[in-house]
């Protein structure tokens, strides 16, 4: 697992960050300029910290105190760059095998990587003849085939259009589920992060403002400004209990009840992660009737997130599952909301789209 602690300064930018990651996907989240890519460059040895200590699986890569600085080519870090960076003079096959040459005893066979990433048709082409999404798939395969101890992905979707993004997300999910390589995924898109990551490190202006499990972090009110006000909300883990083919609605069971959401490609029994934006949750004092909203849960008001302006976030508890509702200050006053008041939380099914759902 990755242990990271480093100070780094270049010009007006300064980074002073420390965090640890576990298995699965860790999202490195923050606005552009927050230092996300710098952290990756320091891990891979493409930039040098002024001081600090970086280790992967107890193997020291950099330690200013001990005078250790392993050169990039001996670090065993898989790096997927924003722009792919395939070698233009080599075919896809040669690009894939480039790193394998140095690590011939890699755990992942070429055939498996090719199958996992759907590269069968591309092997004899050159990078100039690939689409953006294909390039990224090859770049991911190339990094994996160099048998890395950890895989770093630097906004691999940034230069792609929406359909290509969905395509790559699908492949990254497959890798997460079928391989054991831990990944650090840099992104400034909360959608991607919620869908993929198990844990998250939030960076702002070169500092770590929060890190921990995805679900817990999404509920932390003090991180809202960093996670994006508009997108803020809760993450609920649920299990598919029924696919109603007639209505096209999937029924997801979680601790507090059953969610109905449309257009979910998942099998009964699969575990799903749903991002419910606070702005999509309404509150009522009595269970409303004659309403189009399908998801109505009995909840208790826990607290209010102090927020400036006319709106505020109400933290709710649905039989142990946290949920957040963003309502106007005026409504909160008129409804007499206080901590401990029982309410009903209302979530429109269609407000949960495919982008809000990930496979846990």
């Amino acid at each position: 697992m990755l242990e990271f602690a480093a100070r780094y300064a270049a010009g007006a930018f300064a980074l002073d960050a420390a965090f640890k990651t576990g298995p699965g996907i860790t999202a490195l989240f923050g606005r552009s300029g927050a230092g996300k890519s710098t952290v990756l460059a320091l891990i891979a040895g493409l930039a040098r910290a002024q001081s600090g200590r970086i280790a992967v699986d107890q193997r020291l890569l950099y330690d200013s105190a001990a005078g250790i600085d392993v050169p990039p080519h001996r670090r065993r870090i898989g790096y997927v760059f924003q722009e792919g960076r395939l070698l233009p003079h080599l075919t896809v096959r040669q690009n894939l095998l480039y790193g394998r040459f140095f690590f011939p005893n890699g755990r992942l066979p070429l055939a498996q990587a090719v199958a996992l990433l759907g590269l069968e048709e591309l092997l004899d082409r050159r990078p100039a003849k690939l689409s953006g999404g294909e390039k990224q798939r090859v770049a991911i395969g190339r990094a994996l085939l160099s048998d890395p101890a950890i895989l770093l992905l630097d906004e691999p979707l940034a230069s792609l259009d929406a359909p290509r993004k969905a395509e790559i997300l699908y492949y990254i999910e497959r890798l997460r589920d079928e391989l054991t390589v831990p990944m650090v995924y840099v992104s400034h898109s909360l959608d991607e992060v919620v869908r993929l990551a198990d844990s998250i490190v939030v960076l702002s202006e070169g500092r770590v403002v929060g890190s921990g499990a995805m679900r817990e972090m999404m509920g932390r009110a003090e991180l809202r400004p960093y996670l994006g006000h508009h997108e803020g909300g809760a993450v609920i883990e649920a299990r598919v209990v029924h696919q109603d083919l007639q209505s096209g609605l999937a029924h997801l069971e979680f601790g507090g009840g059953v969610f109905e959401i449309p257009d979910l490609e998942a099998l009964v029994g699969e575990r799903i992660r749903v991002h419910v934006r606070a702005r999509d949750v309404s509150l009522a004092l009595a269970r409303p009737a004659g309403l189009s909203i399908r998801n109505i849960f009995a909840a208790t008001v826990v607290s209010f997130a102090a927020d400036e302006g006319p709106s505020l976030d109400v933290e709710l508890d649905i039989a142990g599952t946290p949920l957040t509702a963003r309502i106007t200050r005026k409504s909160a006053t008129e409804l007499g909301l206080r901590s401990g008041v029982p309410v009903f939380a209302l979530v429109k099914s269609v407000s949960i789209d495919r982008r809000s759902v990930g496979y846990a």
Partner: protein
Amino acid sequence: MSSAEIAILLLSLKVAFWAMLGTLPVALALAWLLARADFAGKALLDGIINLPLVLPPVVVGYLLLVAFGRNGPLGAPLEHYLGIRFAFRWTGAALAAAIMGLPLAVRAMRQAIEAVDERLEAAAATLGAGPAWIFASVTLPLAVPGILNGLLLSFGRSLGEFGATITFVSNIPGETQTLPLAIYSFTQVPGGDMQAMRLCVVSIVVSLGALMLSELLLRRANLRAAGHDA
């Protein structure tokens, strides 16, 4: 063409070829140093490499004669230990031509190496390639068009070398008398105008042929480096 003219042409091509071949490793190493390495005295090295461009060729030729003459500080040990002799031999003509062409070759190759995206080299490093391997498998293949161009410039410059050659290895028919030296000789004797003109035409044809061949190679190399099948 008479057999004498053919011999002159072949000698010229031999001198230019070996000058070009000898230039390749030296120019490539210098170009890489100037493009990618950072060291004290880089500006000085750059200046020294470019000196032949601005010095009178006769100065280069004379310094070569002093250094590589049979009793010179370099010429004597080279002949004694390695049996390599430059003074008044065609090998000396090739050496003089190589040094005169070096700045042109280094310049072209340096630009080619500088144009290789360093981000690709960084990507290769993360895949496990050390510096030497990165140079051989990324930098070099992507710089091939510029390297070929540098070689051509060296070859062309060698075909035309006159001042340094005649000073260093003299004008010996059959040994060091290349095309320009032969033309010069014919212009110095009464009635040699026709001979001189014939060799001028040979010179033009050979140079033009080399240019066109290199243009063809360059186009193919450019295509390959850009990732197309050539």
